[in-house]
C-alpha cells in the first residue's frame, strides 16, 4: 500500500515527463489495435465472402481429389451418407457437387468450360448461386417442353460463345467410364460477372450431370456450411473421426494459396508492429532510467533506513506499470470509437485489390475483445521488461556512495 502511494507520488512529481511517456505508449497501443482490427476484419470479410459464395466452410472428397481431381474419384452418394454428415453437431447445410472439364459448343464457337452438377435446392442453402442469377431463371431438374435439360452458364462462357437464354448448348467430355460424353442442353440462366469464380462454369442439375458423365450415384464433393464459422477446426476433427473413408478439407486447404498468403501477411504485420512497439519502449526505457538515475540519492537514503533491494525494484516496476495502465486506459477510450467506425463502415478502397484470387473493395475492421486485449498484453509485457534494468540498477545502489554522490 505504501509502495503504491510512493509510486503514484513519484510519477506525479514530473508531470510533463509522465504525460509524454504515457502518450507515447498510448500511441503504440492505438497503432496496434488499429492494425489488428483492420487485418482481422478485412480477412474475415474476404473469408466470409468466398466461403459463403461457393467454397463452403468444409469440403468433403474422396482420397486426394482436391489435389488431383479425376472424374472417377467419386463418393457414393446415399441419403444415409448425407444424413451422417448433417447429423454432426455444428454442420448447418450440405450441398453435393459433380465436376468435369468439358468443351462447350454453340453455333460455330467453342470454349473450354468446367461442368458443375448441383442439386438446385440444396445448393441454395450453401452458396449464393441463386442470388447470382442475373439473366433468366434459376433452373430445376426437369425436362423442358421440348425434352431438353437446362443449363446455367457463367458470364465468361456466355461471352465466348455469344449465347443467350433459350439457345442450345452442346457439351463434350470424357465420362467416368472412359466413354465420350456428349449431349445438348438449353440455356436457362446466366450467373455471376465476367470476373467472378463461376465465369467459366456450366451448371447442370446433379442427376443430369451424373448421366452425362456415366457417373451414376456418385458425387465428387460435399460442400458444408457451419453454424459457427470459427468452429472449422474442431468440426473438421470430428468429421475426420466419423468418416474415416473420406477426406475432410477445411476451407484453409481448399483455398490454400489465399490462406498461406493471408498468414504470411499477418505475420509480416505483427513483426512490423513488434518493431514499432519496441522503438516506443526504448523511449520509455530512457525515461524510466533517467528518473532512476536522478533519484540515486533518494534510493541511497531508503536503503540506509532499511528498505530491501527487492522493494526498491518493485517500486520502479509499479511506477512503470502505472504509466502503462494509464496509457492503456487512454488508449482504449480513444481507439474504441475509431475501431467501431471501421467495423461498421470501413475505408472504401479506390481500386479493389486482388489477394489469392479474391477481390475486395472495402477495408473493414473487427471490433472484438481480442483486438483490444492482445495489444494490452503486448504493452504490459514490454513495460515489465523495460522496468527491469533500471529496477536492478536502483536496487543495487550502495547507500554510502549514493548519498555521497552530490
Amino acid at each position, binding site marked *: 500500500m505504501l509502495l503504491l502511494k510512493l509510486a503514484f507520488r513519484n510519477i506525479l512529481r514530473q508531470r510533463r515527463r509522465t504525460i509524454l511517456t504515457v502518450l507515447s505508449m498510448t500511441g503504440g497501443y492505438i497503432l496496434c489495435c488499429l492494425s489488428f482490427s483492420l487485418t482481422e476484419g478485412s480477412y474475415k470479410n474476404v473469408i466470409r465472402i468466398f466461403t459463403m459464395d461457393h467454397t463452403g466452410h468444409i469440403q468433403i472428397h474422396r482420397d486426394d481429389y482436391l489435389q488431383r481431381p479425376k472424374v*472417377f474419384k467419386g463418393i457414393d452418394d446415399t441419403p444415409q451418407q448425407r444424413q451422417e454428415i448433417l447429423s454432426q453437431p455444428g454442420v448447418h447445410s450440405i450441398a453435393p457437387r459433380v465436376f468435369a472439364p468439358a468443351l462447350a*459448343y454453340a453455333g460455330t464457337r467453342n470454349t473450354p468450360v468446367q461442368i458443375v452438377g448441383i442439386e438446385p435446392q440444396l445448393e441454395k442453402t450453401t452458396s449464393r448461386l441463386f442470388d447470382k442469377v442475373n439473366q433468366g431463371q434459376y433452373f430445376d431438374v426437369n425436362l423442358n417442353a421440348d425434352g431438353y435439360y437446362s443449363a446455367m452458364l457463367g458470364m465468361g462462357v456466355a461471352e465466348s460463345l455469344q449465347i443467350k437464354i433459350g439457345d442450345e448448348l*452442346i457439351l*463434350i467430355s*470424357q*465420362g*467416368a*467410364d*472412359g*466413354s*465420350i460424353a*456428349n*449431349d*445438348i442442353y438449353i440455356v436457362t440462366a446466366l450467373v455471376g460477372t465476367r470476373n467472378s469464380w463461376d465465369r467459366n462454369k456450366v451448371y447442370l442439375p446433379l442427376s443430369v450431370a451424373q448421366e452425362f458423365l*456415366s457417373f451414376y450415384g456418385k458425387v465428387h464433393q460435399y460442400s458444408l456450411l457451419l453454424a459457427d464459422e470459427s468452429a472449422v477446426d474442431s468440426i473438421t476433427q470430428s468429421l475426420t473421426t466419423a468418416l474415416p473413408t473420406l477426406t475432410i478439407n477445411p476451407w484453409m486447404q481448399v483455398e490454400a494459396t489465399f490462406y498461406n498468403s493471408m498468414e504470411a501477411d499477418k505475420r509480416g504485420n505483427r513483426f512490423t508492429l513488434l518493431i514499432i512497439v519496441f522503438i516506443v519502449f526504448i523511449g520509455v526505457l530512457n525515461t524510466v532510467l533517467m528518473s532512476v538515475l536522478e533519484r540515486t540519492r533518494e534510493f541511497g537514503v531508503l536503503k540506509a533506513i532499511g528498505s530491501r533491494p527487492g522493494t526498491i525494484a518493485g517500486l520502479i516496476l509499479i511506477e512503470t506499470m502505472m504509466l502503462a495502465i494509464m496509457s492503456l486506459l487512454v488508449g482504449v477510450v480513444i481507439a474504441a470509437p475509431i475501431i467501431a467506425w471501421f467495423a461498421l463502415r470501413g475505408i472504401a478502397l479506390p481500386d479493389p485489390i486482388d489477394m489469392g484470387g479474391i477481390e475486395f473493395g472495402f477495408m473493414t475492421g473487427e471490433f472484438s475483445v481480442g483486438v483490444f486485449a492482445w495489444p494490452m498484453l503486448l504493452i504490459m509485457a514490454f513495460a515489465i521488461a523495460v522496468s527491469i534494468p533500471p529496477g536492478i540498477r536502483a536496487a543495487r545502489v550502495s547507500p554510502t556512495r549514493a548519498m555521497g554522490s552530490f
Partner: protein
Amino acid sequence: MNLTLHAALLILTVTFAGLCHADLNSKATSAERAKKLIDDMEALYRGDISKALITMQVVTPQYQRSMEMVSMNQGRDNAFIRILSPKKDRGIATLKLDQEMWNYFPKINKVIKVPPSMMMGSWMGSDFTNDDLVKQTTLTEEYDLALVETVDHYTITLTPQSQTVTVWGKIDYVIDKTNLVPVSQRFYDDNNVMVRHLEFSELRDYSGRLLPSRLEMIPLNKPGHKTLVIYESLNFEPIDVNDSDFTLRNLQSRF
C-alpha cells in the same frame, strides 16, 4: 607379275564379287520378304473389302466397359466404324479416308474432324490411338525393315526413316511362320523402352481364313489398363458394302 598370279587374282576377285553379289541379293530379298510379310499382315483383317463385327472391352483399375461395333474396310485407305452398343454410344461412328479421320456423335448431331494434334489421343477412350486406325497402312513405306528368322517365327524390326514423323523409336513385329498370322507387336519409344504391346491369340476360321480372333493391347505406362478386341465375325465378301459407305454422309445416316 606373271600370268599365274594374274589369273589367281582374277579368279579370287570374281569369286569375291560373286559372293558379294549373292550376299547383297539375299539382303535385298530379305528386306523385300519383310515388306511382303508386313503388307500381308496389315491386309489380313482388311482384305480388299471386308465387314466385321467387333467387341471391344476397355479395362482400367477404375472401370470396365464393353462396346460392340461394326467395322467396314475398303483397301488400305478407307475404313468406317459404327458403334452398336451400349445404347448411350449407339450410332457414334468413325470415318477414315486415307490419312484423314472424322468422328460423328448422333446425340449432338456433330461431325468432328480429328486434327493431327489429336492423332495420338485414344480412340473412344480405349488403348488404341486414332493414329493406330490411320497410320498403320504406311508402315512399309515409312519404316526400314530388318528380318530375323527362327524355327517358329519371323521377327521384323521396324525403325522409322529419318523423315518419318512418329513417336515410336522401334516396332517389333512377330509373325507365326506356320500359319502366317501375327503373334505380337511391340512398340518402343526413342529410348528403346517398350511402351505398349499388342498380343494376337485364339485362331479362328473366318470363311476359310485362319486368323487370331483376339487382340489385346496393353500399355506399359498405365498399369492395370488394357483393351481387348474380339472379331466376332469377319466377312471378306460382304454383299452390303459399297463406295457410298465410306462418305461423310454415311456417318450421319440412319441404320
